[in-house]
């Protein structure tokens, strides 16, 4: 369908500084080629991604696949795309360049293998798949075929967290000693009768896969995969078969250590909130999606930072995107995906390999928790 932002707009230019921001999109390659996209899974994320990627002039959404007749009827009627109940039919019949995959994660291993077989680039919602083993296999397949592969760990495109990563990498707070990655929401605040596909780990349900994966990804984004995981505790509050609260401790060979704490049953939070605390030998960073407090042992006049506390608000950190929906992050992320297809020398900010690190952490956390529970039961 046609739905592109018209060329009458003066579009944002390339980011001026090399540091990461949420969005460094540039239209310089746009209109050179059209990327033909199919979307598999039209739940909340699929619908959001449809709207966002459809705003790009060089993207054409050709078809969608979803088992819901209602969704298919609405998309066919209003969005003018070809709709399929079965993704394999869509892959077989449509001439595509790329797919966006927004299906429950237990389905993704099979779907992604079929996508790779068709030689299509893939963007997949987190947590991508459900084991590091599958993650490594898929990562290797896509890499060997030279296909762009990206996972929707959207925090990497948040302006505050992107800046935090750049500050840490630049050594602004010196060698990092401790971190804390926390995430809260009021997602599940009542007893769950029927959790649908979210009911079990086998389906990708539970606070670890669905929410803590974001907090873990922030850690791997900043510091890489931890070398040792211990003290994992998965607690149930409202869900019947999966955890609502997640806590664990990470250690690195170089001496770095930290913890994560994620709770999706905390009704005191109106909006999902990520909090990050990083303590280094010459400073400290307290960050959430909306701002950052930076403490420095000595001033950095070259960067405009005073000795002691510095407050950075999102209003001073934000980057603009050509089209805004539910924050800048989703747009920055999908535009990055399309840019990587157009420019094969460019790498995505979160490829399958990076997301596999998070899956490996989750595998270990589940094993650690099972071990801890059996120890306590003795």
């Amino acid at each position: 369908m046609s739905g592109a932002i018209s060329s009458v707009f003066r579009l944002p230019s390339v980011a001026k500084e090399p540091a990461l921001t949420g969005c460094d999109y540039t239209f310089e390659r746009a209109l050179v080629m059209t990327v033909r996209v199919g979307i598999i899974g039209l739940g909340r994320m699929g619908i959001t991604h449809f709207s966002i990627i459809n705003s790009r002039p060089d993207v054409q959404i050709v078809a969608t696949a979803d088992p819901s007749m209602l969704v298919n009827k609405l998309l066919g009627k209003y969005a003018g795309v070809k709709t399929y109940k079965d993704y394999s039919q869509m892959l077989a019949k449509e001439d595509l360049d790329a797919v966006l995959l927004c299906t429950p994660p237990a389905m993704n291993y099979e779907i992604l293998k079929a996508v790779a077989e068709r030689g299509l680039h893939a963007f997949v919602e987190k947590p991508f798949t459900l084991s590091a083993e599958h993650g490594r296999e898929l990562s290797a397949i896509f890499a060997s075929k030279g296909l762009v592969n990206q996972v929707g760990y959207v925090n990497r495109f948040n302006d505050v967290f992107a800046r935090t990563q750049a500050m840490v990498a630049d050594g602004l707070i010196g060698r990092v000693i401790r971190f804390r990655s926390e995430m809260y929401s009021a997602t599940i605040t009542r007893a769950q009768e029927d959790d649908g596909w979210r009911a079990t780990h086998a389906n990708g349900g539970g606070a670890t896969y669905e929410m803590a994966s974001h907090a873990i990804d922030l850690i791997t984004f900043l510091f890489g995969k931890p070398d040792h995981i211990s003290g994992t505790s998965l607690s149930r509050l409202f869900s019947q078969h999966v955890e609502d609260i997640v806590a664990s401790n990470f250690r690195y060979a170089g001496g770095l250590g930290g913890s994560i704490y994620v709770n999706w049953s905390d009704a005191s939070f109106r909006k999902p909130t990520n909090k990050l605390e990083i303590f280094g030998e010459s400073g400290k960073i307290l960050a959430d999606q909306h701002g950052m407090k930076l403490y420095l042992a000595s001033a950095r006049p070259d960067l405009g930072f005073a000795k002691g506390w510095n407050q950075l608000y999102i209003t001073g950190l934000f980057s603009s995107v050509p089209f805004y929906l539910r924050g800048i992050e989703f747009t920055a992320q999908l535009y990055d995906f399309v840019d990587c297809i157009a420019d094969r020398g460019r790498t995505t900010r979160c490829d399958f390999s990076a997301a596999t690190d998070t899956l490996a952490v989750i595998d270990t956390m589940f094993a650690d928790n099972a071990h801890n529970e059996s120890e306590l039961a003795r």
Partner: protein
Amino acid sequence: MSKIDRIVFGDNQFFGINHMSQDKAQAQAERFADLDSIFAVYDHAYSAGIRGIMLNSNDRATAICERFKAQASRYPDLRWYPSIPYPHKYASLVSEKGMVGALNDVLFADGAKSAFGKMARGGLAAMTFDAIRMMKMLVDEEVAIYRGLDVRVVFLQNIVTDLILGFDIAEPLIEYCEHVRKKYGALPGLITQNLPYLRQKLMEWGISDVVLCASINKIGYLMSPDVATYEVALDQNDGDRYPVMAMSTLASGAIPAPEAYEYINQLNVQSVVFGASSPGNIQQTVDLIDAVPA
């Protein structure tokens, strides 16, 4: 004479919404936990001469509307600018129950006697599902709490407007605007974070006489694609066909009020919606906004 109030009093300060600081938002939500403290602020706004009120149809709006209706003689000349829907209601439902579960919950919320129940009895089979009819019913349900108030504009929240805009489909917006005009005798309003793009599409689709509410501030916060494109669009805009209401004028506090409104005053902007809690800030804002647009 503009069709809408030059100054409209918003509600974010009451409900724990602050784009810049979650801690501040939390503190505000606690402060306004009871209705009396909310009305103390409304009284300050009224004393400052403000007669336009924007209120999102959130879970506390019903009580606020009821009190205004009960005390109609105290606020005889208020004009209302409700915004619908309350996105969190649907977002949490979807998180908890999935899309289909959420739809079921919304459709059958009050059992078979609700409007949705009636429609469901008429057959909710996918092939006969009438999305536009359902959209109108959802609008009616959300607007119901404002019945009895002088509603001037019914705004659609940006999360909905911009989602439809991205899909590039005219019909839902055309039907929404028609419905608000016909059923409520009010102006339709669209809140957006993509004002230049929306305006361009509305002109393409032949939709006019719609109030456009968008973040407008000199630093470009929550303005896609950027400030310069907004300035061009506003400059070219016909404020009668597309009256513009500026929100986030202070960019969540990043811009001092005098500087923020000096910028707004020189733009072709018909109206400003702002939120504040203290009498001093409310009066200062009213004083800083020029009586007529540039």
